[in-house]
């Protein structure tokens, strides 16, 4: 994972969690993924989005923070006093019928249209590396009203064209999602270890919207496998506030995900 150069009292993962949390508006229905997205959701809940509702693919709906730090969504504290324990098909139905506002997914390989590969590096026929696969990621990328991608920023991961589309972004550009039949959605942001990208509506390409503190645009370009597009209004990603860091530490006390 690329390291932040200078700094400080927070880790890159903590910064990414804080950035993820800011993508959630109050009252939204969030399909919560594993790892950093889980922490991002918890952070948003405890800060600016107290009325956000979390939906977990295991069949859990809850609108408050688990009473104890959890490492994964299946930990029993995450079931404790939840609002609904149901079947995966039920929560996938919510996703598919348009009831989910935003979801988060990770990825191993991404291209400039936000297509993600978490299945086969080197193609499916004679893969160089087999990754764990889609899980719910393909569904979230297809069916949430928007989705946010969180991943490490390395040149081998940011490639001109992914070897395999596990989770569709904008395909090969404008109109593609509609043409293949996807009912809605698409990636809204990519939060990396170096910066945050948004997608330009007219081209469906990702554009660097902010760089993390201490990161230069050149550095981002050096770690990106295609000619970088940079927003004219590029900003610096806000560092996580002390209060946010406290909350993240409460949710991940051993720093398993953010240490």
């Amino acid at each position, binding site marked *: 994972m690329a390291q932040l150069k200078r700094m400080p009292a927070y880790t890159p993962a903590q910064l990414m969690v804080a950035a993820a949390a800011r993508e959630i508006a109050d009252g939204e229905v969030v399909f919560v993924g594993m790892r950093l997205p889980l922490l991002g959701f918890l952070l948003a809940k405890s800060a600016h989005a107290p009325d956000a509702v979390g939906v977990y693919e295991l069949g859990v709906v809850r609108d408050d923070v688990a009473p104890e730090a959890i490492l994964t969504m299946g930990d029993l504290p995450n079931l404790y006093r939840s609002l609904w324990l149901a*079947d995966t098909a039920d929560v*996938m139905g919510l996703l598919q019928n348009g009831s989910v506002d935003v979801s988060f997914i990770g990825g191993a390989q991404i291209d400039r249209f936000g297509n993600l590969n978490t299945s086969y590096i080197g193609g499916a026929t004679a893969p160089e590396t087999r990754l764990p696969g889609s899980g719910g990621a393909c569904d979230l990328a297809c069916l949430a009203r928007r989705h946010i991608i969180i991943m490490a920023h390395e040149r081998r991961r940011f490639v001109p064209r992914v070897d395999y589309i596990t989770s569709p972004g904008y395909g090969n550009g404008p109109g593609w999602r509609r043409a293949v039949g*996807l009912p809605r959605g698409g990636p809204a942001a990519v939060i990396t270890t170096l910066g945050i990208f948004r997608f330009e509506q007219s081209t469906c390409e990702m554009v660097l919207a902010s760089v993390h503190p201490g990161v230069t645009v050149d550095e981002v370009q050096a770690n990106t496998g295609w000619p970088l597009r940079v927003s004219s209004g590029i900003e610096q990603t806000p560092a996580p506030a002390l209060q946010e860091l406290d909350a993240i530490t409460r949710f991940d006390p051993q720093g398993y995900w953010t240490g």
Partner: protein
Amino acid sequence: MAAGLGLEALIPFAAGHEIMRQRKRGLTLIGPISDMLFDQLIGAGCVSGVRAAWVGNVITGSGYHFRRAVESGRLHLEDHSNLTLAMALKAAALGVPFLPVRSALGSDLFTTNSALKPLNCPFSGEALAAVAAIRPDVAIIHVQRADEYGNAHAWGNLGVVRDGCLASRQVIITAEQIVSTATITSDPNRVITPGFRVSAVVHAPWGGHPSPVPGHYNRDHQAFIDYSEESKTVTAFARWLQRWVNDVRTPEDYRNLLGRERMEALRLKNHLCSEPVDYGY
């Protein structure tokens, strides 16, 4: 063979280990997110195919045996998403040959999953994907309590357990507790699948360890972290297999291996009792 249908919870590890001890071969594993059970079965040589959305170790990532097996071309793979796998089992549960979905469109899952096909809605003409039914020969599930006839209660996040059981030709249940039929019939809404479709019931306390079993024990994270190391090489795995599977002859052996202290640490500390309801007349 379908297993790990509760997603992260109630994974039938004890049953899986027995399959490994019996050196079963040529199994096709079916399940959305198997956590590390599928990787163990692959490592033990029991598996020739996998129909799944995700195979690995939830909190550490890679399933090394799965990776090695796929990269060396030894495994027949059918790539699903959680939704497509859930719908494949639901199709069989409902007794139809396929179900339509709006997921997977535009993805390359179509290239590595022959159970997915493009389809147009017969009403609107819109593009959809058809997911072929998966009808497992057997579903193995772990539950909290069952009677001797296979009537069983499960609670918590239920994943695809209910559909997986209805989809399968046979259902095998392992249970933390064997209870009276009166306990089960005191709450028929909590029954996980109709008992008349259950072939076998096994009393298996700690049979879901290290996955979490609501009402009984928490997830044993350390076991997953340890396994990640213990499965990185074939040699390390051989030691793991000997210690945790082959040398374990009885459920007591397994509990002794775990040790009292570890079991105590995993037990529930904060209880929450469900408010009862009345099924009277």
